């Protein structure tokens, strides 16, 4: 067991290290209230813009809030909602991609041309437009990002379903009397999921990036809720005097996005999955 683990560590170094980092982040998001030394939204102007100390491990921001606590709580929003975007876009893409690929014909044409239309608009612009219509807020941004993102999953899944559909074992399953639903459940979804997991890992980084960018623009998470992108936004007025306010959340975003991307890359290499 130990030797096996050591072997894995050696051959799959990137995967193991990235997974460990993500697991740690996962623990942090769950146990944030227990780890955080201070209330992340408690304003204390007497303690504003303090350097790191025992009470405030990473110092305080312009309102005297503990930066460290805010980063911990911010992970909940950044990672949690990125995960929500990922899961929703994936499910939507999975359903639409399978229908499009399996049914084919005009249904396929309709769904895919609609998808092409969505893809023609740059995703940031789409979300901006979305926020422009329904107002700034986390809900709108998340919804906008889901609506942009599903198309990519749908296209990849459709392609996979198209090639799976021609496999003899699908024909054999039909001849064995399996209904369309059983064929989906037994043959198509299990064969699509592994590639999807790989793709999803890459897309998680994308979701975190975009969510934070929108918050940075002041369109996503509204103050005083801590979120990494929003923290950078708030800290940017102090870039000359207290650059740390931007650097810490920025480093966190970088760490998470790079981790997800590296993990996705090495997973796709490991399982031979093609990217879109």
């Amino acid at each position, binding site marked *: 067991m130990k030797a096996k683990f050591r072997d894995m560590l050696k051959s799959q170094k990137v995967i193991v290290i990235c997974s460990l980092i993500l697991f740690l982040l996962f623990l942090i998001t769950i146990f944030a209230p227990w780890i955080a030394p201070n209330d992340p939204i408690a304003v204390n102007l007497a303690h504003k813009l303090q350097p790191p100390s025992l009470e405030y491990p990473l110092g305080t921001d312009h309102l005297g809030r503990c930066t460290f606590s805010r980063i911990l709580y911010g992970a909940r929003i950044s990672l949690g909602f990125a995960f929500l975007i990922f899961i929703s876009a994936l499910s939507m893409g999975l359903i639409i991609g399978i229908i499009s690929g399996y049914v084919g014909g005009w249904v396929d044409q309709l769904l895919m041309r609609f998808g092409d239309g969505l893809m023609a608009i740059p995703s940031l612009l789409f979300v901006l437009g979305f926020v422009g219509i329904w107002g700034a807020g986390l809900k709108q941004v998340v919804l906008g990002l889901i609506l942009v993102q599903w198309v990519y999953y749908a296209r990849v899944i459709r392609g996979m379903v198209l090639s799976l559909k021609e496999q003899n*074992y699908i*024909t054999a*399953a039909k*001849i*064995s*009397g*399996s209904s369309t639903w059983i064929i989906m459940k037994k043959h198509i979804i*299990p064969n699509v999921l592994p590639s999807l997991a790989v793709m999803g890992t890459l897309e998680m980084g994308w979701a975190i990036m975009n969510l934070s960018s929108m918050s940075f623009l002041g369109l996503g998470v509204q103050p005083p809720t801590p979120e990494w992108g929003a923290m950078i936004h708030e800290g940017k007025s102090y870039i000359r005097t207290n650059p740390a306010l931007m650097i810490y959340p920025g480093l966190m975003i970088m760490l998470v996005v790079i981790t997800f991307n590296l993990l996705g890359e090495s997973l796709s290499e490991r399982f031979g999955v093609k990217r879109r």
Partner: protein
Amino acid sequence: MSLLQVKQVSLSFNSKKLFKGKDLSKKVLNDISFAIEEGTCLGLIGTSGAGKSTLGKVILGIQRPQQGQVLFQGYDIYNADKATQQKIRRDLQVVFQDSYSAVNPRMTAERIISEPLENYEKLTITEQRKRIIELLERVGLSEKDLKKYPHQFSGGQLQRINIARAVALKPKLIVLDESVSSLDMVTQSLILELLNELKDDFGLSYLFITHDIKAAFLISDTLGVLEKGELIELYDSKDQFFSSKHPIVKRLRDSILAEHPRFRTLTTKANWVNTNRLSKQL
């Protein structure tokens, strides 16, 4: 009444274009009619691209022809109601050429064979496992193979699993679409032997689609030659095939290689003599 009747089936693939362009439709089957009697095997011989596999698909009910009818036990399989279609499905099975692509690589042998059973027979888990073990043993495998995945089998073994899946529901007709063509000679003859045994045991009928004339001789009761989507001739016996004067049949016949290289010659005329000798051997 014949088990299966194919009546004037024609099929062409047309590629529909969003914007009208050249007509790219291609005629694949042209006015094909034949019948298969219960308990017999029809061997369908033809070169690559003759439409053999498409004809197989038409008979299996997964490729609707533009014209003509396919009657199975008197029911038109493309125009029957849902319940009848589901019943016909059960009695019509298939074994494909490439045994690896005919099974889901993520499924164990047990799950592969259980698929038709789950769809048609509501068995308890133990009953079902007993049936699957029986089937595995019937096709020459054993209980040990239950939990193995497709990549752990050889091509011949996997073809046996495909056969087990096809006979699991005790069907009436099995379409053997080049089922032995990708196997080596020894395995081929073993599988053909197995198919012959199963035919007697279960009272099966076969449609044996192949380009291998020798294999067709070994298993078929009647023979048909398909060329460019047309059924050229039907024979009740091998002798009829050998005495046919049709140029395409002649060419097919000449393509049979003699077992021993010494008997092989390059000129068609000499080969004709050899195939005569071959007809006596067979």
